[in-house]
């Protein structure tokens, strides 16, 4: 070990243990990823979003929901005093609201990913592995969900459940799993008759064990890519619901709701709606770049 640097150990052609092999593989992936500077920009944006969300209380100079003096501090343009991005119609600091709004955005993205990905994986792998009527039933249900435009279906769910950020998350999660199920099913179909799966079956492994231990890990990388690429869409859907008054409710500093509120003042006080719009743009772009980069390194079929 002493003679070997950590880098050499990781890139060793003859790993001495499974751990070394895995870490080596991860390191090689990272090296490929790092060479794609656009993907690094995406990663940087997403990491910045996470940091801003964690340290929102420290970063934001003002309270995001309680404004200043209505008489003197309304509609201050950007860079007035210490209001970096200006203030809105209720004299609230827009920068502080965007910083706190990042928490809501991140919460939506993470929760939707956590809810929708397992559902999609479960439905897809089960359907692809068992085939037959299980496949037919599950895929027709998926078809039904896919037949609706996503925002419209989310609107219907929110209308039924009542407006609010939690219900918006549930609605988006319910509408985003079908593509993952499709993807997982397709992957499962290509591997379910391969020799190592049959070997596991001959050794007496149960279906659940095969699905969880052998099929799911192989589907995971393509699903992760898809989820990351979808995150921009999730953010936009959440913002769309907020804009329509069905997502986060006032005074929560959700970016879509902020645009909706600022729209009335767009002609004279352009910054009220523009600033959260830019925030949504940057974060969506970040997730898209990251997803693209991840696909380049994770998708075995795309590798040259």
């Amino acid at each position, binding site marked *: 070990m002493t003679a070997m640097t950590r880098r050499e150990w990781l890139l060793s052609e003859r790993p001495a243990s499974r751990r070394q092999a895995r870490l080596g593989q991860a390191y090689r992936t990272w090296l490929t990823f790092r060479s794609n500077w656009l993907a690094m920009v995406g990663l940087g944006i997403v990491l910045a979003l996470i940091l801003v969300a964690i340290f929102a209380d420290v970063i934001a100079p003002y309270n995001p929901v309680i404004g200043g003096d209505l008489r003197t501090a309304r509609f201050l343009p950007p860079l007035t005093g210490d209001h970096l991005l200006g203030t809105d119609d209720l004299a609230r600091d827009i920068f502080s609201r965007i910083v706190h709004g990042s928490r809501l955005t991140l919460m939506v993205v993470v929760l939707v990913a956590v809810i929708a990905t397992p559902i999609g994986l479960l439905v897809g792998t089960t359907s692809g592995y068992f085939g037959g009527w299980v496949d037919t039933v599950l895929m027709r249900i998926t078809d039904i969900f896919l037949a609706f435009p996503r925002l419209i279906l989310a609107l219907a769910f929110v209308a039924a459940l009542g407006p609010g950020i939690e219900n918006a998350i549930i609605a988006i999660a319910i509408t985003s799993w079908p593509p993952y199920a499709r993807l997982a099913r397709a992957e499962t179909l290509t591997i379910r008759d391969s020799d190592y799966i049959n070997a596991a079956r001959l050794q007496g492994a149960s279906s659940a064990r095969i699905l969880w231990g052998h099929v799911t890990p192989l589907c995971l990388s393509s699903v992760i890519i898809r989820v990351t690429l979808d995150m921009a869409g999730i953010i936009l859907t959440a913002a769309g619901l907020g804009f329509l008054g069905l997502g986060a409710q*006032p005074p929560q500093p959700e970016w879509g709701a902020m645009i909706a509120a600022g729209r*009335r003042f767009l*002609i004279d006080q352009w910054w009220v709606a523009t600033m959260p719009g830019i925030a949504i743009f940057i974060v969506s772009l970040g997730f898209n770049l990251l997803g693209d980069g991840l696909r380049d390194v994770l998708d075995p079929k795309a590798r040259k």
Partner: protein
Amino acid sequence: MLHSRTLLAATVAAFTLFSAPVRAETPADTLIQAWAIDDIISLDPAEIFEFTASEIAGNSYEGLIGYDPADVTKIYGKIAESWEVAADGMSISFKIKPGRSFASGNPITAEDVVFSLTRAVKLDKSPAFILTQFGLNPENVDQMVVQEGADTVVFKMDKPYAPTLVLYCLTATVGFVVDKKLVMEHEANGDFGYEWLKTNYAGSGPFAIREWRANEAVVMERNANYSGDAPAMARVIYRHIPEGATQRLLLEQGDIDIARSLTAEELDAVRANPDLKIQEGPKGSIYYLGLNQKNEYLSKPAVRQAMKYLVDYQAIADTIMKGKVSVHQAFLPNGFLGALNDNPFALDVARAKELLAEAGVPDGFSVTMDTRNTPEITGIAQAIQQTMAEAGITMELIPGDGQQTLTKYRARNHDIYIGRWGPDYQDPHTNADTFARNPDNSDDATSKPLAWRNAWDIPEMTKMADAAMLEGDAAKRAEMYLEIQREHQETSPFVIMFQEIEVSAMRNNVNGFIVGPSFNDNNFAHVTK
């Protein structure tokens, strides 16, 4: 036809793209107004109870009597030439002006008046209570509203109500006179022509309603048979443009003459534009918070008082609602008989905290507030939310559209409701009836005024309001209302905040538009441009 239209649209689009912006101009004899007209559900005076439809009826129909919008105490005859209150105060007889006619050319007779009033009572739509509160009902109305001789109508009542109350009620849209002959020609299944009149016109006002296209436009034309001075405008058109920003752009370009629903910020921009001007008129509408007495915290008198100190009335009126409201804290709007114009409350967090401690909730509590999701109500609600938080009261806003919030409010399932109340007629009883009367506080009460909606049980105040309704002497009556309002201010679960000011922005050449105290008083018969 379709092709030529498409071609036309394409040409117009091409011109807008490639030519320098040219200021459009409306025709010289046409007045075009932009407003949100989606509240219209009917054009039948017996059913009209909405802001826009009231204004349209006010300019196309006439009542027996009217009042001067600048001084509502000056009542004059429109269809009636004169009127006389019987010695016992139980009836009023109206003598009809001779020689006047409807837009259809039919003469206006006492028979039309009797028909219109009995028709409104028998149809029994939302505004019918304005007439039925005098003891009229579909069964007895044929005996209560009768014709005597050729040109006299007698209006009988079950009690000697204050004469001004009765007269003001007859100025409401529900008392407008319709053309009996024309309406009955279109009767179907004994509906008094209701289905037809919903979308048609049978009146005698300065303008005739030619067309109503829902959520698009209302077109009115000069009434050639109008008995008064002919209006200068041949046509008046309302365009449905709900967005204030769009209205402002159209007004600046000259595509419309009057913009009716601009927000405070847009009005600031209009004030700065030399081509445009602003006309204001106080309206009777009141903005208030209703605190439901079924809530354990809100039912404490000291909490109710504390909340009245936790609204920054003046700051809201100066900023978010600049130019659109004035601070007013009693239930009778300024301009009404007996209106109380004292504003004893202002933002005072320290005082509110004392009151909360007195009520046993020094650390505050959590409540919800049902908020209609219009920009203005949401803005006021958020400003109140902020000042309430300063005293530890956590207020969660529950937004909904008008229908949702109102349904919940009417079932009294709310904690706090932020509302706007418009008086139905110009007599103080209209607001006293709803803010200060609650004859039956049980869940299945038949009458459900605002006091009931907030579960405020007030047998004493109800008696005072009932007595004021019957007082014939105006000065004494005004004093009675002042007394009720003073007590109301100190004890009621209503945080009354503002009185509305209606603001219209118009092009400089538009003159003679009158903004009256209620929407059917908004008058454009004398507009010139």
